[in-house]
């Protein structure tokens, strides 16, 4: 059974990459009209991506997802606000820390920051900068999930916290160093790419269905967007503090 699921997931991952390959090929052949150098390395790399994605998603579905769901259920049943909020924070924090796309982004950000002499061009300095960035993002995702869970419990409309975050971003951006803004704006969506979305959606929908008077659709969703807005604010603050 595991083998069949593995093959299915492998095909799914291949399907994930297919639109990219198709678009690139069409442009390469019809518009650019040149052959790509180093094709075999590209193909090997793409196969690695497919294999890695397949194993990763399979692993998440076996471990993190059922565990997160059952824990969210247990905490909702426990009825202790303190523990539920604590769990929400930790879940958001650790999901963001584990996000592979975020690891890649902060490395890229640190690399270009050291190339432009924003930070020392030593390896420890850029590792320090990258780790700081990742922790900032993870803490803000944790906080966002905490506030989002509070929103579901209180039954506030979804757009209250979102509009507040919009206002925060609009107010802080003019004060942030110019070279952190792009990283900050991207970090939010990147922190909520692969692990966070299923876990957080499961948490939100699970909570909203467990609480009387909440609708899973109108109340359960909306956690992800908030989790992607908070890092924008916090990374800009990080940039201001670092400068």
């Amino acid at each position, binding site marked *: 059974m595991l083998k069949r699921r593995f093959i299915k997931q492998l095909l799914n991952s291949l399907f*994930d990459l*297919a*639109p*990219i390959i*198709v678009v690139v090929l069409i*442009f*390469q052949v019809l518009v650019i009209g040149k052959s790509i150098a180093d094709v075999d390395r590209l*193909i090997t790399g*793409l196969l*690695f*991506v497919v*294999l*890695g*994605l397949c*194993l*990763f998603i*399979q*692993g*998440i579905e*076996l471990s*993190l997802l059922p*565990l997160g769901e059952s*824990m969210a259920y247990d905490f909702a049943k*426990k009825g202790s606000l303190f523990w539920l909020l604590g*769990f929400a924070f*930790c879940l958001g924090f*650790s999901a963001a*820390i*584990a996000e*592979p*796309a975020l*690891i*890649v*982004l902060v490395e890229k*950000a640190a690399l*270009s920051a050291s*190339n*432009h002499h924003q930070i020392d061009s030593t390896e420890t300095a850029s590792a320090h900068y990258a780790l700081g960035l990742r922790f900032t993002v993870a803490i803000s995702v944790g906080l966002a999930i905490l506030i989002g869970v509070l929103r579901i419990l209180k039954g506030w*409309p979804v*757009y209250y916290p979102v509009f507040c975050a*919009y206002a925060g*971003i*609009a107010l802080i*951006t003019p004060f942030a160093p*110019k070279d952190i*803004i*792009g*990283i900050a*704006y*991207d970090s939010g*969506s*990147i922190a909520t*790419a692969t692990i966070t*979305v299923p876990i957080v959606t499961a948490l939100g929908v699970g909570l909203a269905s467990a609480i009387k008077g909440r609708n899973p659709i*109108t*109340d359960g*969703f*909306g956690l*992800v967007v908030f989790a992607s807005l908070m890092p*924008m604010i916090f990374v800009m603050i990080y940039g201001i503090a670092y400068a």
Partner: protein
Amino acid sequence: MLEWLLHIGLKLVEVCINILPIALVISCFQVLVIRKAVVYPRKLLIGFGFVLIGIVFFLEGLDMALFPLGNLMASQLTTPDFLGNNTELTDRVWQDYYWVYLFAASLGFATALAEPTLLAIAIKVQQTSGGAIRAWGFRISVAIGVAIGLALGTFRIVTGLDLYYFIIVGYLIVIIQTFFVPKLIIALAYDSGNITTSMVTIPLVTSLGFGLAEAIPGRTPLVDGFGLIAFASLYPIITVLAYAQIAQWLGKRKHLTNT
């Protein structure tokens, strides 16, 4: 071969350190707060092992394929050869780069439309809206949103305009739309933008932005290269809200003509 194995081994250690926090958090809560035995400990461990090896291969593949691919497309679509030799590099206007916008838009459209998570959500939306919002309409409006977002984002990199203005204007549109759409769709529309930016699209789009910022005179990767992902997750919100509004309006009209 040995060198490669060593390289993979080092990467595995690095990933282990990266994943440690989430494993710690979950086990602490499980042991200290919930105090219940995990139901399938073996399945769990196998899952974690899969995650670790998966990330190692994924990161390796990124370095070998997705990053170079984004860079390659950016540089190929901006070389003087491709744009025609008539104008000086510094005299170029933003219209000269129209293939870049087209490429970004088609990439966004195709990846969003094929995203499996989006498909699942689209079906859910159709059910809860009682069929007023169609799954296909929802998916296509998200895809159009991502396409518009990426095209605008590359346009911004080419022109070097401030990221701030594009995002704030987007926010204002979302705020205004929120007051006019059916309440049911708001939360889903908000989340739809983030759902489409997956692990595969992020590295490709990021390196496309970086490549463009490097290739176009007067741009620096650190200031101009980032931001594409932010575009790709904001603009779908606008198109989905717009679609919901149109669907509602059409539904009302149909209802009126029927009675």
